[in-house]
C-alpha cells in the first residue's frame, strides 16, 4: 500500500473540523516521511456549507485535488455529504459515514435514500453513529471526526501508523484539546472491533 498514492476525502459541513482532520492526517504522513498534497477551502464556502477537503499521500504527489474516481477512502462527517464525494469515488472506494444529519435549509435526503444511492452505484459503505457515540462518551460531538480517523486506522483503511497520529494530535491541536481528542481517537480504534456498524458489503475485517 505504501508504494501507491493514497487518496482520502473528508466530506462534511463547515464547522465540523475538517481542516483539523486534514492537518492531523498530513502531519502523520509527514512524520512518516511521505510526500503529500492537500486542498482545503476557506471563506464563504465554510459558513455551514458543504465542504470537502482532500489529502493525498505517497512517494511523490503532484495534484492537491483527488482525481475523479481515484478516492481510496471517503470519510463523511455528515450522511448527505457522502454523496457529494460520489464523483471522486469508484467501486473500489470505501465510504465511512457518520450516521448523523445536519439538515440543509432546502431539500434533505433520508438515511434510506442515501443508502439506496450508494447501493445503486455499488459503493462499499459503512454507517456508524460516531457523533452519537462521542456525544454520549464525551458530551462533545465535534470529536466525531477524530473518532472516525481512529476507526479507519483500526480497520486498516488508512495506511499510516497509529503512533504517527498520536504524535500528530500533540503537534496539531492546542494542548487543552489534546487529551479529549486522544481519547476519542483511541475509542475509534477500539470501536473498529465492534459490530454496531452497518455495512452494505462483507468487509474482510
Amino acid at each position, binding site marked *: 500500500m505504501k508504494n501507491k498514492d493514497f487518496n482520502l476525502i473528508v466530506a462534511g*459541513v*463547515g464547522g465540523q473540523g475538517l481542516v483539523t482532520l*486534514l*492537518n492531523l492526517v*498530513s*502531519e502523520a504522513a*509527514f512524520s512518516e516521511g511521505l*510526500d*503529500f*498534497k*492537500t*486542498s*482545503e*477551502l*476557506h*471563506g*464563504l*464556502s*465554510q*459558513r*455551514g*456549507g*458543504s465542504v470537502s477537503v482532500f489529502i493525498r499521500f505517497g512517494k*511523490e*504527489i*503532484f*495534484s*492537491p*485535488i483527488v*482525481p*475523479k*474516481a481515484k478516492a481510496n477512502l471517503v470519510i463523511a462527517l*455528515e450522511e*448527505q*455529504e457522502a*454523496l*457529494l464525494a*460520489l*464523483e471522486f469515488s*469508484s467501486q473500489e472506494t470505501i465510504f465511512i459515514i457518520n450516521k448523523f444529519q*445536519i439538515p*440543509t*435549509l*432546502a*431539500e*434533505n*435526503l433520508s438515511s434510506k435514500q442515501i443508502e439506496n*444511492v450508494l447501493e*445503486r*452505484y455499488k459503493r462499499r459503505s459503512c454507517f456508524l453513529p460516531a457523533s452519537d457515540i462521542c456525544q454520549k462518551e464525551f458530551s462533545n460531538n465535534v470529536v466525531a471526526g477524530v473518532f472516525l480517523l481512529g476507526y479507519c486506522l483500526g480497520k486498516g483503511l488508512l495506511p499510516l501508523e497509529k503512533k504517527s497520529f498520536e504524535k500528530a494530535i500533540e503537534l496539531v491541536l492546542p494542548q487543552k484539546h489534546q487529551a479529549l481528542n486522544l481519547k476519542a481517537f483511541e475509542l475509534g480504534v477500539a470501536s473498529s472491533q465492534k459490530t454496531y456498524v452497518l455495512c452494505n458489503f462483507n468487509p474482510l475485517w
Partner: protein
Amino acid sequence: MADLLQKANKKILLGNEAIVRGALEAGVGFISTYPGTPASEIGLIFFEMAQQKLKEKKKPSFYFEFSTNEKTAMEAAVGASFCGLKTLVAMKNFGLNVASDALMPFLYTGTNKGACVLVVADDPSCHSSAQSEQNSRPFSYMAHIPTLEPGDPQQCLDFIKEAFKISSKMSLPVMVRTTTRVAHQKMPVSIAKSIKQKANSKAQIKFIANKHQYVTMPPRVLEMKEELLTKIEKIKDLAEKSPLNKVEFANSKKTTGIIASGVGYLYVKEALKELNIELPLMQLGFFYPLPEKKIKSFLKKLTQVIIVEELEGFIEKEIEAIAKTANPKIKIFGKNVLPQTGELRPEQVILAISKVIKKRLKPFEQINFRPVKHLPRFCTGWPTCPYWKLFAAVKQAAPKQTIFGGDIGCYMIAALPPHNLYDYLSCMGSSVGIAHGIKKATQNKQKVIAFIGDGTFLHSGIEALLNAVYNQSNLLLIVLDNSITAMTGHQPNPSTAKTGMGLMSHPVKIEEVVKALGVQNIKVLDQEEEYEQLVKTIKDFSNKKDVSVIIARRICGLLAKRNLKK
C-alpha cells in the same frame, strides 16, 4: 496557523503561509492588505505575529496594517517603497480592480531603493467569491507589471523570494498571482535555516525627494513609460534565464509538448504519471513578460503543443503569436480541449492530453445523481449570528415590492434559502450605488433597501452614500455593524479600534461618518435588544423623502462566543 518563525528544514505550509515565510526570508519590512479569500491568511498571519511580539513586549521586524481597502493598501506600499522598504501587498482578485488606479502609475515611478511584491489571489470556480470568475492576469499587460504564477506552496515561497529579487533589482513592483488551489494547498516545504533580519537599517529608511521620479506629470510621464518598457525588455532577459521557467523531459523523443502554468502544472505532472508517458513539459513561472526565446526553442522540436492554464487562455494567445515565426505548422491545443469556466481538474487534463496524443482511456462511470448541498448559512448556536434577527425584522417591516440590494460580506448569505432576499448583488460597496441609480431611474416610485456591513461600508460604501445624499436619493441603507470583518476570518477594521499591529486605536463610529456625509435620518439600534423599534424604524424610514440610514449594531456571534470563553 503554522509557527512561521520556527527553525526547521522542512515544514508543512499552506500556500499563503509559504508566501509569508518567503516574504520574511526576503526581508519584508512593510505589509499592507485588505482581507479577501483566498488571500486572507496572509494578513492574519502577520497580525498574529505582531500581536505575539506585542505580548512579549518585543518589536516586530516589520510594520503591518489592515488597510481600509485595496487601493489604500497599495498606496501605503508605494509610499513605503519610496522610503526604501521591502513591501508586500496582498489582496484577492477583485481587490486588484480597486487598487489598480494606484498600481498603474507605480510602474512608472518604480520602487526606488525599496521593493514591492503584490500578491493577487484569483478564485476559479468562485468557491469564496460572488461577483465574477475573475482572471486577473490581463492586469499584467495593462500595468506592465512583471507577474509570476506559482503552482504549489514550495513555489509560493521560492517565487516570492524571486519576486523580491526582481523588484529590488529593477526597481519595479512585481505581481505574484495565485489561485484558490495554490493558496489553500499544503505540502512539505523546504525553508531557509534562518530568517534574515530587515535588510534596511533605520538610517536608510527615508523619503529622499526626487521629483523627476515620483511626479507623474506630463510631459515627463511619457518618458517614464519609455523607461518602463525598457525595463520590461531587461526583465525578458531575466525570464529567459530564470529557473522559474523550466523544461522537463527535454530529451523525450515525443513531438507533443505541454506548456503549463500555475496549478495546471501539477495536474500535467499528475496526468503524465497516470498515463505513464514523458512529454516535453515547460512550466511558465513567468506570466509576464514571457521568455519568448525559450518558448521558441521549445516549440521548434514539436508538432503539437497543449497549453494548460486555468480560466481564459491568455498564454495560449501568446504562444499562437510566438509560433507564427518559430514553428508555423505546429498544432496548438488549449481552450479547445480544456474549459474556460471553472477551475481545472486533474482528470480534465488527463483527458485533454490523451485526446491530443490519441491514447484511449477507459471512459468514466456516468453518475447522473444530483446530491443535495448544504448552503452556507448564518451561524447558529448561542450567542447566535445577529443577522437572523435583522433579516427577520426586515421581512416583517419592509413594504411590499421593496427592492433589496445586497453587498459583499457574511450577509451575502441572505441571498440563499430560507431568506432568498436580494434582488441584486454585485461588487464591494455597490448596494448603495446601485440603489441610488434605481431610485433616480424610477423617480422614487420603487422603494429600495440596501444592505452593507461595517467593513464594506468603510471600504467603499462611503463614496456611494455621499453620492446618494448629494444627488438627493431617498434610499434606505441598513448598515450591519458587527464591528469586525467577519467573513474573511475576523480582521479588525476602523470600527474595531484595533490596528494590524495589535494596538488600540480610536474606533470610527459609523453614525458619525454617516452624519458628516449629510444624512438626516439616522438610527442606531441593536436588533436583539430593540427588535420592535427596529421594525418600526424600517417602516418609518421607508417613507422618508431623503436618504435614511439604520445602523444595526450587534457583535458577531462567533466573536461573542470567543469573548465568553475568555
